[in-house]
């Protein structure tokens, strides 16, 4: 071969080497599940965010799926209150935690407007009402912030967050604020949160630091719009009470004795439902799963929506922190959500929620007193019109708000719970989320994706 011929052939060969892989790649279906090893049927227990998303992905993959929802509503811990105010109010998940998450990516598909107004918090401290700007420049705020910032580095014994605050010598009058930010935010109060799990979650968090709220959409409407193709698969009012995975098929039985045969099942029920054994597994779940379920906390919590004749808080108010029975309030309609802007949300967890929920008749009075303390006189109670209580603890098929780390355990329990049982039973939901994403919608979606990954790749 002479040089000219060689160069000609080399040029052709180089072209081939360059373009052939691209051509082959373009022919290939870009799916990790192209080597789909599973071709059976799937049952999903629970039509919350995890269950709907799992059904959505399975239907996209052409796998037959049926979703069994115990209640008469789709959405799980995502629910909307319509008609109470001049805008739909989220009774469950509301905030989008972080701008680098599956849920954030999904929400943006629905093209909502986010609240962009600069909302300012209100603090009631030692009998004085402070604006966010005033309090956030105080030494007290700096003290709380510094011990919260140090949580991620915490590697001491697995004490409660309250004990940690005491070790850090946080003054008694700052404890309510610490509880609002650390306890309430994590689904309980600081006496019940374990520092090891809390620190682990802080370290592992990958979803970004920005918290976003939709201005013109409620969370449920976005969920239903995004995963619409999954909705026809949902059977409402079908509480599954027994899952038998002894034989080749998994047999699900509902409370009326109806049975459903599936090849695999994804259980997305809340961890409290699993802990309370509302679903009987036959044979019993492996001890590691049982241990994991008992190592993840979930308890009392509520959202109380309070309507007033007129707002008594400044425009563009964010959260309102007042020591008292409710750790945190926020101006629900602010940021452009509502023209009337006359609605506050009271949000409580753990022992605070238990104490208030014991006596719903005196609950409103106690909460209005708390607001009156901050805003003076009978500012709140004189303007009170109506309320709506979303008591998540009382929901028979949910039994709480969201999961939290309890002292003496680690978040590794969540990874253990999400391990498949005999390649037939898979668990998903916010309690199974890793990377500290528990208690969030994106954590629920991620856990569902993890379950699907494992399910479809096992023959």
């Amino acid at each position, binding site marked *: 071969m002479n040089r000219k011929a060689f160069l000609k052939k080399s040029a052709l060969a180089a072209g081939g080497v*360059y373009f052939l892989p691209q051509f082959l790649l373009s022919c290939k279906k870009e*799916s990790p599940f192209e080597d789909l090893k599973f071709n059976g049927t799937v049952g999903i227990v629970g039509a919350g965010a995890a269950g709907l998303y799992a059904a959505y992905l399975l239907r996209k993959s052409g796998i037959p799926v049926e979703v069994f929802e115990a209640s008469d509503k789709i959405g799980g811990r995502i629910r909307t209150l319509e008609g109470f105010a001049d805008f739909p109010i989220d009774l469950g998940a509301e905030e989008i935690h972080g701008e680098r998450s599956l849920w954030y990516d999904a929400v943006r598909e629905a093209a909502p407007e986010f609240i962009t107004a600069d909302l300012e918090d209100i603090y009631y401290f030692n009998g004085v009402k402070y604006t966010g700007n005033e309090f956030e420049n105080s030494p007290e705020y700096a003290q709380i912030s510094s011990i919260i910032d140090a949580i991620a580095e915490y590697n001491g014994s697995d004490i409660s967050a309250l004990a940690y605050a005491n070790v850090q010598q946080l003054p008694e009058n700052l404890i309510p604020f610490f509880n609002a930010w650390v306890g309430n935010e994590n689904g309980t109060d600081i006496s019940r949160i374990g520092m090891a799990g809390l620190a682990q979650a802080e370290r592992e968090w990958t979803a970004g630091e920005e918290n976003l709220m939709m201005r013109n959409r409620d969370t449920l409407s976005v969920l239903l719009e995004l995963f619409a193709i999954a909705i026809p698969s949902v059977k409402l009012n079908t509480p599954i009470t027994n899952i038998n995975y002894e034989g080749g098929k998994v047999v699900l039985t509902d409370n009326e004795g109806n049975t459903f045969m599936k090849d695999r099942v994804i259980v997305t029920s809340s961890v409290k439902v699993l802990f309370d054994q509302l679903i009987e597994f036959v044979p019993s779940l492996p001890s590691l799963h049982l241990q994991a379920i008992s190592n993840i906390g979930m308890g009392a919590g509520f959202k109380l929506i309070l309507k007033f004749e007129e707002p008594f808080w400044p425009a563009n108010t964010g959260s309102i922190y007042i020591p008292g029975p409710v750790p945190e309030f926020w101006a629900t309609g602010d940021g452009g959500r509502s023209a009337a802007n006359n609605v506050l949300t009271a949000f409580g967890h753990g022992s605070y929620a238990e104490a208030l929920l014991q006596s719903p008749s005196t609950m409103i009075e106690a909460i209005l007193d708390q607001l009156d303390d901050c805003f003076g006189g009978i500012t709140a109670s004189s303007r009170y019109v109506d309320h709506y209580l979303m008591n998540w603890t009382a929901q028979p098929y949910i039994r709480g708000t969201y999961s939290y780390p309890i002292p003496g355990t680690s978040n590794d329990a969540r990874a253990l719970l999400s391990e498949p049982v005999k390649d037939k039973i898979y668990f998903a939901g916010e309690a199974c989320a890793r990377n500290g994403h528990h208690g969030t919608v994106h954590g629920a979606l991620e856990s569902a994706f993890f379950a699907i990954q494992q399910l479809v790749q096992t023959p």
Partner: protein
Amino acid sequence: MRILITLVMLLHAVAGVSQLSLHLGHNYLRAQEWDNVMHYYNYARPWQDDELKPLSHGYDIRAGWIFRWKAIKSLYVHPQIGVRQFSTSANNNKEELFVRLRQYSIQCDVNFNPRALFHNVSAGPLGTRWFMFVSPSVQVWRPYVEQAEQAFYTEGDEEISPTNWSWSAALGVGYRAAMISKQFILSPKFGLRYTPKAELDDLVFAVQGGNPGALESIQRNLILIETGLEFVWIFPRTKSGKGYMKPCSNC
């Protein structure tokens, strides 16, 4: 200044016994498990405008010197430093996720002609026209992920660059195809590079976010198909300054 002078003197000394080379290449990375990281990202987001492509195609640029080791056996040593880059991006409702995998490498090729090891062959300034090369290398992997123009790897407000090390070895062939202006030799090269136990956990973590499970182990053995063009500048060292003679066309 002393360092600069020393460097200039070293360069001058090196230039006296070697030829300067520049390599431009295309790389095809064969790593199914890594590709799956991108596939999983896409699969979890069926609503995306477009998809993340696997990090299959990359480009590299390398510079180095070719030292004649044993002229009669046509053995040459070719140390090089280089940078190789793979990148992909996807738009998710106008927010772009950009993923880049950059690799910095130090490698030392040994060029040889098997025939010349045992027979006398005629050779040009860079040895025989056909040659093979073996190429051990040490690499630093620097992944970079950005979403909505925000870097993923940060510590507080500081952007950080995760770093992983690996080593690799390549085997390939080249051809001294053309001499341009009696100053430059142009050589197409083709090789296969094997990298055992390459780590990409930082990149996986960034792309997958909280979705674990795409990779069970963070270490993977990689095959890289390297193609490229090498330009070697033949310093004129003859008294006439006319450069070297062309190598033979049939050896």
